[in-house]
């Protein structure tokens, strides 16, 4: 288990270089008004040295309180260490031998020589109340307590076996492990044909990949089977969560009737769709959730074809129209948002049908390097290709993470090999569809709230 961290995040697009953060830091830490003493340093971007006052023209030198801190690794004296509770990297002056190796180890200029003291110094997030963050007039700085999730769930039991047979960097495995941690052991888990059982959730020849009862429904009947399980436990007065972790293909295509029927009847189950936009475990074929233009093995790119010719089915919006007890979209790039939605979905599944649609980039089928998974997921949201929202019949639809300045969708598309062949016209089509979809969801959100 990796260690928790809390850190200060910087949004360059909001920073106009006023320097208030540096003043606040120098004041708080050293009772000095010399911004050179600040542990947070805002600097003009090297490549954009002109136009210094423009937002987006600055970069940051600051300790990230890394999860896998290289400064700690390189320090020969053991003077640096990551605090298990807060995740802050502490410097112990009494152990430091002033070799400065840590300053070389850090890629972010986060630990540096303080010329006044002749020793290194670094940000310690002011015991969880960093002075720089409230000082920033534009909101470019945020104190990010990603640590909350790690600290809360890190100790919870991982209900999947170690060593599931996922592809390298598989987002779905990440999602499965986090989700089941939250949902807990009093669960019956359905993993219909797709990547999830392919990874070994339902084992081979009598083995199992989970610590909860798990079954391999048909691709077509997951929601119905789960409904039967849940109803019988309700009948005998036992509290058992009935949950599916299903792929997009079965849910949106051949299993849709069962899904729709169960939602209409208000079956009290939690149905999570892991949307990797295709039938990925069987060799990357298209599903009705595959986006327009994408290469798949059944929508190939050749002399006569340029990937999928239809837009994706918007399954979560279709589920909204079933008036489910809860519907939400989520992304592993926004874990706190995902956890909050899991909590609500679990609660809703005790009185109605709860549906969670999670975008899950597929390193293998989407053609990108496995280390880039969360980056791809984040760009999908930042470009509004994927919108994060939630719905209940009582509160209507609302965005949980609206994007103020969306990236052009091409920034998202070019992160993946499956879109490499796109023509400018195809990219324009996708950009238009992204905007159209966004307006559509926005209208629903306004209407629901109006």
């Amino acid at each position, binding site marked *: 288990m990796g260690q928790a961290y809390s850190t200060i995040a910087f949004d360059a697009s909001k920073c106009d270089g006023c320097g208030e953060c540096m003043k606040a830091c120098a004041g708080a830490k050293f009772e000095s008004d010399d911004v050179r003493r600040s542990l947070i340093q805002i600097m003009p971007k090297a490549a954009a040295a002109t136009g210094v006052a423009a937002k987006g023209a600055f970069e940051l030198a600051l300790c990230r309180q890394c999860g896998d801190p290289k400064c700690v690794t390189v320090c020969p004296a053991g003077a640096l260490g990551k605090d298990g509770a807060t995740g802050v990297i502490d410097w112990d002056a009494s152990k430091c031998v002033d070799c400065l190796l840590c300053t070389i180890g850090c890629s972010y200029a986060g630990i540096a020589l303080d010329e006044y003291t002749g020793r290194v110094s670094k940000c310690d997030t002011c015991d969880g109340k960093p002075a720089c963050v409230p000082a920033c007039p534009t909101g470019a700085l945020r104190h990010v307590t990603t640590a909350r999730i790690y600290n809360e769930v890190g100790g919870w039991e991982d209900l999947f076996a170690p060593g599931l047979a996922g592809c390298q960097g598989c987002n779905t495995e990440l999602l499965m492990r986090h989700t089941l941690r939250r949902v807990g*052991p*009093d*669960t*019956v888990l359905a993993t219909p044909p797709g990547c999830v*059982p392919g990874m070994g959730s*339902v*084992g*081979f*020849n*009598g*083995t*199992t*990949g*989970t*610590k*909860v*009862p*798990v*079954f*391999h*429904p*048909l691709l*077509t*009947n997951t*929601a*119905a*089977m*789960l*409904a*039967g*399980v*849940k*109803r*019988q*436990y309700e*009948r*005998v007065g036992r509290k*058992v969560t009935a949950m599916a972790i299903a792929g997009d293909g079965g849910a949106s295509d051949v299993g849709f*009737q*069962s899904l*729709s*029927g*169960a939602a*209409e*009847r208000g079956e009290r189950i939690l149905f999570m769709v892991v949307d990797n936009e295709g039938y990925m475990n069987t060799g990357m074929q298209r599903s009705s959730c595959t986006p327009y233009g994408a290469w798949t093995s059944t929508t190939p790119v050749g002399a006569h074809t340029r990937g999928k010719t239809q837009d994706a089915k918007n399954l979560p919006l279709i589920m909204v129209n079933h008036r489910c007890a809860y519907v939400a979209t989520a992304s592993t790039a926004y874990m706190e948002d995902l956890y909050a939605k899991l909590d609500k979905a679990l609660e809703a599944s005790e009185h109605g049908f709860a549906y969670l649609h999670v975008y899950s980039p597929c390193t293998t089928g989407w053609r990108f390097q496995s280390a880039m998974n969360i980056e791809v997921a984040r760009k999908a949201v930042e470009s509004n290709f994927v919108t994060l929202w939630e719905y209940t019949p009582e509160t209507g639809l609302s965005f949980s993470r609206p994007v103020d300045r969306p990236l052009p969708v091409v920034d998202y598309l070019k992160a993946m090999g499956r879109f490499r062949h796109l023509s400018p016209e195809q990219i324009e089509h996708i950009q238009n569809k992204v905007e159209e979809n966004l307006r559509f969801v926005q209208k629903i959100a306004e209407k629901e709230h109006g």
Partner: protein
Amino acid sequence: MSTTTIDTPNTDAARATTKAMLCEGNEAAALAVALARPDMVAVYPITPQTSLVEKLASLIAEGRMDADIVDAEGEHSVLSVLQGGALAGARTYTATCGPGLAFMFEPYLRTSGMRLPLVMTIVTRDGITPQSVWGGHQDAMTVRESGWIQMYCETVQEVLDTTVMAFKLAEHHDVMLPVNVCLDGNYLSYGASRIELPEQAEVDAFMGAKDVNWHVALDPQRPMAVDPLTGGSGGNGPETFARYRRGQCRGMQSALRVITEIHEEWGQRFGHHFAPLVEEYRLDDAEYAIMTLGSMTGAAKDAIDEARAAGEKVGLIKIKTFSPFPVAALKHALRSVRALGVVDRSVAFRWNCGPMFQETLGVLYRLGRHIPAQSFIGGLAGADLTTAIFHRVIDETRALLTRPASDEPVWLNAKD
């Protein structure tokens, strides 16, 4: 030997408390289900099963039956809901026919593979295509290699009694297989007869404790992976798969004994005696015989009685249990028969004959005696199989005593 000759009337002395009433086959099936106290019924209406699920709905609505009823969006989900329920410990029931059975084929195959003791009435129907909503056995015959037990009923009373017995059979530890009680669409589904309805307490005593998922469960208190992937080359995968299959076959063979035991117990408790596997009717000194299945048997028996009165040495063999095929019982029934006519209400496309005829050919081979046998196909799509038609069957079967059988089936109710 697992054959029973039904030639004595039921005696009041042996009879448990019952209530006489008039009802249709579909209604009788629903009343039987209520007596068996399932936890969950999932339903989707389809002709000619519809009045059965309507009756179930009204029994539950009136509080005469305590079950969770799931009005699913189609037969595929009907069976899937019940599988989930059974895996959580529920006693489960549904009914279907024709296109509905075809639509549930995928979960249907799985029910027997998971050894789930579901009970499902097939209100048999012909089709699909040419379209027909009327009776015939083609639907049930089409799924005969699916690992389900199939029993066919002759009368409304037999529908009621067999349906209750089916639950006990399905849950028997030596069996653990799903059971179809087949009741002829139109003839039994809508045909009203006098029946005797057993008292609930007596049925409770007969049924004993519910025992559904001792072997396979989705329960956080006993976590297990249900239906993991098996097979493939290398390792013990194929052996594991073969062990499952052999277990299913063993369950089917055990069912022949358990069906007989349950019918005997039922007869003792309720005074209703039915042949569990094969009924031998006026067969003792018969030179030749005809074979029937389901509701056609009544008209056939009348024809046999009339032929007997005219001095013909003819008898009748009724198949009650079609799956597993009652090989030993049928061998016994055929012990002295020298010619055989087999009447099917469906076709075996590959063999140009009826399915029951085709199955019987295997028994004749195992019997080690060559008996001329003729396939008759009639009663398709709701056509009547009258006593007059059975006289034709009797006549053509008698002719086999002196001439060989035709490879072509005799099409009853057909324009040539």
